[in-house]
């Protein structure tokens, strides 16, 4: 196998690409709003990226749970969990960056200590920790169990963090899709963005899973090869 692509991923990839192009075009041609001028156009991408981050971490928790559950334990679930976490961290970083870019003109600062921002930042660090655990060298099953526990625990941590920080303060705007608050064109651009980002997430997820599988194969075959070489050395005079 020389590529991690298949017909399925090519179709998803192509759809994601088209979707992203449409999102960008729609986003850039949205009308200016009175309060936010150009910046309201970020609505085409920012909520969609944030949604993907949460989706990704949900999938990580799911993969971790299925790995830990004895009757469904399979390397596949470990690959799902780690691939999704890695993609999720990227989307979380993008959420923070696009949010900051949006926050600066609307709130006047790059960062405010509001509930959602703070939770997202904590979530970002939390999953960096998960990836750090996953990267510690160990036998594949030990590493997978260890990571799965952290991945599942993170699903407990995020709501607790959110609940606490929510108590602390709230300033972020509420649901954008509440009826009557948003012009039709904005809604369409936002929904196209959701679709395109979700497809992009799926595409990245599948590729990353395949890379993970190949890496694991490389590890075990490399070990077999090394053992065979040493044995050959021992036999040779």
């Amino acid at each position, binding site marked *: 196998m020389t590529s991690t692509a298949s017909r399925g991923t090519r179709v998803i990839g192509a759809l994601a690409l088209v979707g992203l192009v449409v999102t960008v075009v729609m986003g850039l041609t949205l009308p200016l709003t009175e309060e936010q001028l150009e910046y309201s156009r970020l609505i085409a991408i920012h909520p969609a990226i944030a949604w993907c981050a949460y989706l990704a971490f949900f999938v990580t928790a799911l993969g971790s749970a299925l790995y830990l559950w004895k009757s469904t334990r399979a390397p596949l679930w470990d690959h799902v969990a780690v691939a999704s976490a890695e993609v999720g961290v990227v989307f979380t970083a993008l959420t923070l960056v696009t949010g900051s870019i949006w926050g600066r003109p609307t709130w006047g600062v790059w960062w405010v200590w509001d509930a959602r921002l703070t939770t997202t930042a904590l979530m970002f660090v939390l999953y960096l920790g998960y990836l750090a655990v996953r990267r510690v060298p160990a036998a594949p099953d030990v590493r997978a169990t260890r990571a799965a526990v952290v991945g599942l625990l993170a699903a*407990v941590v995020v709501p607790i963090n959110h609940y606490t920080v929510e*108590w602390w303060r709230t300033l972020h705007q509420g649901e954008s899709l509440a009826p009557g608050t948003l012009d039709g064109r904005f809604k369409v651009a936002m929904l196209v963005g959701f679709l395109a980002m979700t497809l992009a997430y799926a595409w990245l997820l599948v590729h990353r899973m395949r890379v993970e599988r190949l890496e694991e194969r490389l590890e075990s075959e490399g070990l077999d090869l090394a053992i065979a070489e040493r044995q050959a050395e021992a036999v040779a005079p």
Partner: protein
Amino acid sequence: MWRDAMVIAGRDLRIERRSRVVTNQVLPFALLVIVLFAFALDPDRGVLDRAAAGLFWLAVLFSALLAIQRSFAIEATDEARDGLRLSGLDPAGIFLGKALAVAAQLVVLEVVLTAGIAVLYGSELRGPLLLAATALLATIGLAAAGTIYGVLAAGLRVRETLLPLLVLPVVAPVLLASTRAWEAGLQGVPGEGWSWLRILGVFAVTYVAVGIAAFGTLLEDA
């Protein structure tokens, strides 16, 4: 389970009584941290008194990391971890025992640090009941969450650097809630502080439950 917990807690505290690592190293470190905070924030401007609750809990948090490291460092010597696995003790009991020992050490640490901020920062302990209740719940939560991640990182070569990255985002709610409650307690408006105890309670119950359920897996497989 509780009997096993007492055995483990007794053993950990006995090791501590004989080696005095927490008393002779972690405790001075915690005091050093609150002295250094005074250098960082000019003591003459009244900042220290206002920030006392937050600084206190940050010092507790940093020291807790060291206490957790220590709690699992004693398992690393002489294959103690394997002995623990083979001992036949209930994993949930081992978890509770180790968490209890860490909690006991943290309580001592908090008492000394409280005296520290009272003397060095001039904080008045106006709502002692609230302060004590907050400290108790926060300590249970910190010890439980710390013990879960402690055993996870214990066998790894990168444990010293990995543990803070894993634990700090997890215990962020404890820092937030206990600081708010202590602020209310120190400023003499304990009425505002009690509601934060709910979060500390939820946190403590959650992590004690998770630890009881997951510790066996972590001790055996990870």
